[in-house]
């Protein structure tokens, strides 16, 4: 059963995500969705006294690419400074994912990084409709 995109690593991470869950207390937490496909990712981050990532947890739902990307990203940023997180290049995350992605799927792959950076910059959480009803 081969698939260029859905390599073992992606499916492994989809089945057994890394750093999945909540972090309480945390220094910042942020959530965003990709309304096109309904992918949603929340990331909680705790910093140490030197403003480095001491611990990180994420949770969410969505396609295998968005979910695998959140695992890979949260694993990669442990120990980075807040400034390094803000400057984290998207090319690096795409490299970690390591499979060729079409334009539509790049959005799935980069959702977690978008969430992380928005949290790191202290942006207010998007005031959207998700909580209503």
């Amino acid at each position, binding site marked *: 059963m081969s698939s260029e995109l859905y390599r073992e690593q992606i499916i492994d991470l989809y089945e057994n995500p890394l750093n999945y869950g909540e972090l309480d207390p945390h220094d910042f937490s942020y959530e965003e969705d990709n309304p096109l496909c309904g992918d949603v990712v929340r990331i909680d981050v705790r910093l140490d006294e030197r403003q480095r990532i001491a611990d990180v947890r994420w949770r969410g739902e969505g*396609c295998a690419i968005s979910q695998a990307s959140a695992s890979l990203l949260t694993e990669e940023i442990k120990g980075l400074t807040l400034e390094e997180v803000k400057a984290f290049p998207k090319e690096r995350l795409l490299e970690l994912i390591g499979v060729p992605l079409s334009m539509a799927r790049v959005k799935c792959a980069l959702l977690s990084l978008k969430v992380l950076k928005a949290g790191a910059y202290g942006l207010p959480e998007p005031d959207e409709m998700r909580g209503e009803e």
Partner: protein
Amino acid sequence: MFDVEKVREDFPVLHQEVHPGVPLVYLDSAASSQKPRQVIEAMDHYYRHLHANVHRGIHTLSEAATNAYESARERVARFINAPEPETIVFVRNATEAINLVAATWGRRNVREGDEILLTEMEHHANLVPWMMLAEEKGAHLRYVPLTAQGLIDLSAVERYLNPRTKIFAFTAMSNVLGSITPVAALVSAAHSVGAIALVDAAQSVPHMPVDVQALDCDFLAFSGHKMCGPTGSGVLYGRRELLEAMPPYMGGGDMIRRVTFEGFETNDLPYKFEAGTPAIAEAVGLGAAVDYLNSLGMENVHRHEQFITNYAMEALSEVEGLKLLGPPAAQKGGLATFILEGIHPHDIAHIADEDGIAIRAGHHCAMPLHRKLGIAASARASFYVHTTTWEIDRLVQSLQRAREIFRLQRAS
């Protein structure tokens, strides 16, 4: 006799490999249909031999272009049994047709406190224009709830209609659930409280016989690109009295009878709503699409799609963990929307694409409906005149492969 393999010969795009060695299976006609060579050739012929601007020139080509454009209008009018060609307004698509009504009839007739009735399964095209109008006017939007099967029943509609209802705008067939609505009964219910009825026929006109006089609807909107025609071609049918009383939509050339520095006088129907040089070649292509569908026969088209839908729903329900959305095949048009336990619709669509199969994944421009169903997204296979049972079999195989990749089942 409907010979699907012969029909397939008419569609050049179907005869290609989307990846090396992987032939295309196109199951996304509800998003946009493919074009038969008859339509492509009609547009090519128009540009090679007939093109000039319409309704303006004295010269031969201008007259030829005008004739081609107006003949397309006549054929579209006959196709939906409109009483006269002047009640057919050419627009870009169903979206523009609905926006036109909301912005002209709506602005003139909807007031603060009035109600606009929609259903829970409308496409964004039949939601957002009314939201914009309601916000501007202080009117209220109300939504007819779906039954558990995803249908609209008349008694629910009757509960929501009241003397404050100004317009009931609803789909003839849901682009997500496939549910077919009882259009004539819904129109009649709207009329009984003095409301007008707009039918979003984007998913019905391409797939089944539609007769606007039998339906007695006030407005009917559809897109050419979903019925073998080109993108940029769409139709608003409107009852003559309503169209005549409506203010114009856009201003410019062709929509005026006379212009002075002080003002303008609007042109006759349908030109009043067709400002500027229209999409002439696209109208010609739409006319050719109508001829093509007529040559197949809309009853045959509908029967073929019902056969395929039945087949698809049975075949898909054999896939473990697969849940079909919407009503049984007898009450739906040519599509099957589903979710597959353990695999996100985007992943399903991606794996299908690796197998050459084009299906849609996402919310299909119906986010409120998906929220109501409690899901973020779904996968949709939609069918048309060229869809075969072996294509459905290919989809089922691909879904099995997706389950293997996601370790939900062993390789067979």
